[in-house]
C-alpha cells in the first residue's frame, strides 16, 4: 500500500493540539499593576507541527498562555490573545477560565492582546484549532486561580481549604457562613505558591455554570452601536490614505507609470512605483498613490496608466487549465497517493461500473471588510494596526521587507471584518508598511473591492475523474479518483492536495487515488475548511451516484459503507514527530448521519414534484457533520434551497451553544452561497471577476432555515469554525439530483442545465 499524507495547510492532528499535562506547565502568580492578583500561565504543546501551524510562528515559544487579573473590586480581566474574525473566540475562550474560576460571567472583562508571542505564545485564527488547544489548559488556569483564592480565604480564617467553598466570585466558610469576595482575597492570594496545574481539580461537567450556557458575543453591543472596532476604522494623527495598484496578471511588475498626471489629481500627496518581489505572499510590485483622503487616492487611480511587465502567467487561463486537465485525465496520474488491492481487476469483476468527472472552480474569500492596514514607520520602528489572522507571520514579513529587527515591529490586532483564511496572509500589511515608510507619514492602505477580488489566495479549482465498481449486492468494491490539480514550484499548490486517507479510502478494498498537476501562476491558499470544502463536494456527490446505481437509499448506502463503528487506521509508519493525524471514527459518523436522517424526516415525507432531499457527511477539523438539504428546482432551472438540517458531533461539550449554532448555520449558508453562484475565472493570467455583481454573495432571500442538532459524545470538544461547511454542498447537489434526476458535476450550479426541456 502506498500512502501520502495530505500536507494540509491547517489540519494538524488532535495529538498536536492537546497539551500534555506531564510536561512543563507554568503558573505564575503575582501582584497585578494597580493591585490584585495576576495569574500568568503557560504550557507547551506536546508536539508542534511546524508545517501545520501558520508560517512565521516560532516553534520554541510557549504555545498556550493565559493572563487573568483579579482586581480588588472583584472584576476579572481575561486577556484574549487570538484574533477575532467572527468565530466568537473572544467570548468562548474566557468562558473556559471563568467557569472553573467560579466567577459570574458579568464580572468578567475581556481585553484584546497585541501581538506578543514571547508572552502569549501562538496567536492566530485558523484550522478551528482554538477549542481543542485550549479546552483543557484554560480550564486548569481557572481552577488553579480558584484554588489559590480558596487557600487565601482559608489562611485568613485560619481554617482548612476544605472548609471553604467558592461560587460567583465569593469564598464562603461553610460552617460560619463568613464570606470574602475574590477582590478582597486577591492581595493575599498573590503571596501564595501557585498550585501544580497537572493536579489541579477540574469541575465535574454537571457543575458547569458558564460552559454550556449561551453567552452572547462580548463585543456584540459595540458592533451594534457602530463602534470603530475594525482595521478599516483605525485613525492616527496626521494619517494619509493610500491605494495600491498591482499588476492584474499574477507575478507581473510595474515598468513605468504616468505618475505626474496622477500627482496632479486633487488631494494627492505622492505617487510612486514599488518594485517588489516575486512572492505573492510578500511585497508585490505596484504603484502607490497617497492622498489626504482615501476617496481622492481612489479617484486619482482612475487616471493611472501603468506599463507592466506581465510575466509568464499572462498565458494562463481557466480554459487552458480545463484543456490540460482533459488531456491529463487520459493518462495515468503522475503521483500515486494511495493504492489498495487491484483496482482494475475489481472493476472488471464488478456487476456495475459508474464513471463521472467533476469540476470545482477557484474561489475568492471575499471578506466584506477589504484588505487594509494602517502603519507608522519611525526610523527602524514600525507600528501596525491590522485585521489579521496571523500577525506573527506579518511581523516577520514586515521586518524582512523593511530591514528592521522583528522586535521593533509592533502589531495591534483589530477585529477582522471576516477572515475565512484570507487574512492568514499579510501581503496588505507589508504593502502598508512600505508605503508608510516612503510617504514619511502614518498611512492607511485600503484595497478596493476589485483589488480584493483580484489579489487573493484562491481556493484552488480541481478536476476529479472517478470510477466506482459495485458488486451484485450493490456493495462498493472498487473506487478510483484521478485528480487533476495544480502545482506551485513542483509541489501541490496550497490547499490543492489530496490525502490517502480521504473517504472512502480504508473502507473499499480496491482503491486508487492518483494525481497529475498543472503548474499554476495563480496564488492559492486556505479557504474555510481548506481542501475539505472542495473534496466533500466531489466525493460525497460521487458516493451518491454509487448509491443510486446500487439501487439503495443514499443514507442506507452510506451507513453500509461506514460499516462497523471503528476508528479508521492511521497511515502506516506510526506517529511522526508531531503525533498521529486524527482519523475518522465510523461510529461517530454513523451516529450523526442517523440523527440528521431522523431530524429531517428522511425517507418519510412526501415531497412535491421537482423537490428533493440530499444527504452528505464529512469529517474535518476533528468534527463530524452530516447534513440534509431540501431543494426545489423550478421549471426554469432556478434552485431554491428550502431547508438545511445539520447534525454535528464536536465532542463532549458544546461550549457556547449560541456561538456553535451560528457557526454551523453560517458555515452551511456559506457553502450554499458558493455552490449557487461563485467562481473565479482566469483569463490571460488575471482574474475576470471584480465585485459582487459577478461574484455574488448569498442574500437573505435565498438563505433557507438551518436547523442544527448536536450529539454529545465522550470525546474532547473540538472547533466549530469550519467543519459544518463541507457536507452542505454535496447535500445540496444530491438534493437537486433527487428533484430533477440531473447530477451537478460542475460548480457553481448552472440553472440552464436544470431547466425542464
Amino acid at each position, binding site marked *: 500500500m502506498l500512502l501520502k499524507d495530505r500536507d494540509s495547510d491547517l489540519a494538524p492532528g488532535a495529538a498536536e493540539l492537546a497539551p500534555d499535562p506531564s510536561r512543563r506547565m507554568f503558573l505564575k502568580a503575582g501582584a497585578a499593576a494597580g493591585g490584585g492578583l495576576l495569574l500568568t500561565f503557560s504550557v507547551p504543546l506536546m508536539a508542534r507541527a511546524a508545517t501545520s501551524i501558520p508560517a512565521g510562528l516560532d516553534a520554541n515559544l510557549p504555545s498556550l498562555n493565559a493572563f487573568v487579573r483579579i482586581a480588588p473590586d472583584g472584576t476579572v480581566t481575561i486577556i484574549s490573545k487570538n484574533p477575532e474574525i467572527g468565530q466568537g473566540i473572544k467570548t468562548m475562550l474566557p468562558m473556559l477560565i471563568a467557569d472553573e474560576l467560579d466567577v459570574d460571567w458579568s464580572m468578567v472583562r475581556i481585553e484584546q492582546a497585541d501581538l506578543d508571542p514571547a508572552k502569549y505564545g501562538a496567536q492566530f485564527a485558523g484550522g478551528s484549532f482554538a477549542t481543542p488547544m485550549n479546552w483543557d489548559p484554560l480550564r486548569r488556569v481557572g481552577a488553579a486561580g480558584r484554588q489559590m483564592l480558596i487557600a487565601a480565604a482559608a489562611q485568613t480564617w485560619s481554617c482548612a481549604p476544605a472548609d471553604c467553598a467558592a461560587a460567583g466570585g465569593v469564598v464562603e466558610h461553610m460552617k460560619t457562613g463568613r464570606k470574602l469576595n475574590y477582590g478582597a482575597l486577591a492581595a493575599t492570594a498573590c503571596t501564595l505558591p501557585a498550585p501544580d496545574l497537572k493536579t489541579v481539580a477540574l469541575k465535574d461537567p454537571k457543575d458547569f455554570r458558564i460552559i454550556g450556557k449561551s453567552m452572547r458575543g462580548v463585543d456584540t453591543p459595540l458592533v451594534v452601536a457602530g463602534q470603530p472596532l475594525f482595521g478599516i476604522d483605525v485613525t492616527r494623527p496626521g494619517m494619509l490614505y493610500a491605494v495600491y495598484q498591482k499588476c492584474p496578471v499574477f507575478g507581473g511588475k510595474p515598468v513605468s507609470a504616468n505618475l505626474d498626471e496622477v500627482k496632479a489629481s486633487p488631494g494627492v500627496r505622492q505617487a510612486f512605483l514599488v518594485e517588489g518581489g516575486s512572492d505573492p505572499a510578500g511585497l508585490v510590485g505596484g504603484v502607490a498613490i497617497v492622498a489626504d483622503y482615501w476617496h481622492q487616492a481612489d479617484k486619482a487611480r482612475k487616471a493611472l496608466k501603468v506599463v507592466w511587465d506581465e510575466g509568464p502567467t499572462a498565458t494562463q487561463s481557466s480554459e487552458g487549465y480545463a484543456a490540460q486537465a482533459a488531456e491529463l485525465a487520459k493518462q495515468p496520474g503522475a503521483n500515486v497517493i494511495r493504492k489498495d488491492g487491484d483496482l482494475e481487476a475489481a472493476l472488471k469483476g464488478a456487476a456495475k461500473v459508474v464513471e463521472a468527472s467533476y469540476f470545482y472552480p477557484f474561489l475568492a474569500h471575499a471578506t466584506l471588510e477589504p484588505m487594509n492596514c494602517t502603519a507608522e514607520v519611525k526610523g527602524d520602528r514600525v507600528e501596525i494596526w491590522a485585521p489579521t489572522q496571523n500577525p506573527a507571520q506579518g511581523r516577520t514579513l514586515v521586518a524582512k521587507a523593511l530591514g528592521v529587527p522583528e522586535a521593533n515591529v509592533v502589531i495591534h490586532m483589530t477585529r477582522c471584518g471576516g477572515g475565512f483564511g484570507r487574512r492568514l496572509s499579510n501581503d496588505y500589511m507589508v504593502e502598508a508598511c512600505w508605503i508608510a515608510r516612503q510617504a514619511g507619514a502614518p498611512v492607511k492602505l485600503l484595497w478596493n473591492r476589485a483589488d480584493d477580488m483580484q489579489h487573493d489566495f484562491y481556493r484552488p479549482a480541481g478536476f476529479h475523474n472517478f470510477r466506482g465498481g459495485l458488486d451484485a449486492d450493490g456493495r462498493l468494491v472498487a473506487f478510483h479518483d484521478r485528480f487533476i490539480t495544480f502545482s506551485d514550484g513542483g509541489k501541490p499548490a496550497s490547499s490543492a492536495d489530496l490525502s490517502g486517507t480521504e473517504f472512502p479510502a480504508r473502507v473499499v478494498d480496491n482503491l486508487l487515488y492518483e494525481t497529475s498537476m498543472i503548474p499554476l501562476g495563480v496564488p492559492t491558499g486556505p479557504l474555510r475548511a481548506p481542501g475539505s470544502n472542495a473534496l466533500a463536494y466531489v466525493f460525497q456527490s460521487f458516493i451518491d451516484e454509487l448509491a443510486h446505481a446500487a439501487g439503495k437509499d443514499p443514507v442506507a448506502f452510506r451507513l453500509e459503507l461506514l460499516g462497523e463503528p471503528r476508528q479508521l487506521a492511521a497511515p502506516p509508519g506510526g506517529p511522526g514527530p508531531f503525533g498521529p493525524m486524527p482519523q475518522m471514527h465510523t461510529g461517530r459518523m454513523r451516529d450523526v448521519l442517523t440523527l440528521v436522517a431522523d431530524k429531517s424526516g428522511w425517507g418519510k415525507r412526501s415531497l412535491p414534484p421537482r423537490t428533493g432531499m440530499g444527504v452528505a457527511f464529512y469529517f474535518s477539523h476533528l468534527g463530524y457533520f452530516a447534513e440534509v438539504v431540501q431543494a426545489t428546482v423550478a421549471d426554469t432551472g432556478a434552485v431554491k434551497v428550502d431547508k438545511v438540517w445539520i447534525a454535528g458531533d464536536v465532542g463532549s461539550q458544546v461550549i457556547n451553544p449560541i456561538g456553535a449554532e451560528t457557526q454551523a448555520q453560517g458555515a452551511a449558508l456559506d457553502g450554499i452561497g458558493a455552490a449557487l453562484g461563485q467562481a473565479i475565472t482566469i483569463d490571460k493570467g488575471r482574474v475576470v471577476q471584480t465585485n459582487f455583481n459577478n461574484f455574488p454573495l448569498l442574500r*437573505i432571500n435565498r438563505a433557507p432555515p438551518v436547523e442544527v442538532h448536536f450529539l454529545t459524545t465522550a470525546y474532547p470538544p473540538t472547533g466549530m469554525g469550519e467543519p459544518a461547511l463541507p457536507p452542505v454542498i454535496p447535500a445540496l447537489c444530491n438534493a437537486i439530483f433527487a428533484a430533477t434526476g440531473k447530477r451537478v458535476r460542475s460548480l457553481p450550479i448552472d440553472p440552464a442545465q436544470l431547466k425542464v426541456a
Partner: protein
Amino acid sequence: MAYTIKVNGKARTADVEADTPLLWVLRDVLDLKGTKFGCGMALCGACTVQINGQAVRSCVTPVSAVGANEVTTIEGIGATSVGQKVQAAWIDIDVPQCGYCQAGQIMSASALLARNPEPTDADIDAAMAGNACRCATYVRIRAAIKQAAGLATADSREV
C-alpha cells in the same frame, strides 16, 4: 468646496469635492466610522445609511446630492424608537459574527420597520436582499427583525 449636511440631527461641514461619496465624508471627514465600505458600487449594503428615513447606499451618493435632507447613521439610529428596538433585538438574538455588515443591516431593518411595522418574511426578503452578510447570519437577522417588530421569531417559510 464646503458642504454642510445634517447628520444625526447636527449640521456638519465637510470641505470636499462635489463627487465625494457620502460614505467617505462620514468616515474620513466626520469620523463616523460605523458606516462601512464593502464594494463601492451599491452591491453589498455595508454602507447603508438613512436619508429622511429611507435606506440609501452612501457609497454611491455624492455629498452634493444630500442637500438639506436628514442623514442618519448607525451612530444615530438608536435615538429613534424603531432603531433602538432593532439594536436591542440585534443584541438579544446575538446576530453578529464578524459584525462588519451589521451597521448596514440595522439601517435597512430600521427603515423597513419604520414603514412596515409588521413585515412578513417576504417583506423582509425584499427589504434586506441588498444587504449582504458574508458570515451569512441571515437566520438571526430575520429573527431579530421579527423580535424588534414584536412578532414571533419563527421562520414562516419552515418546510
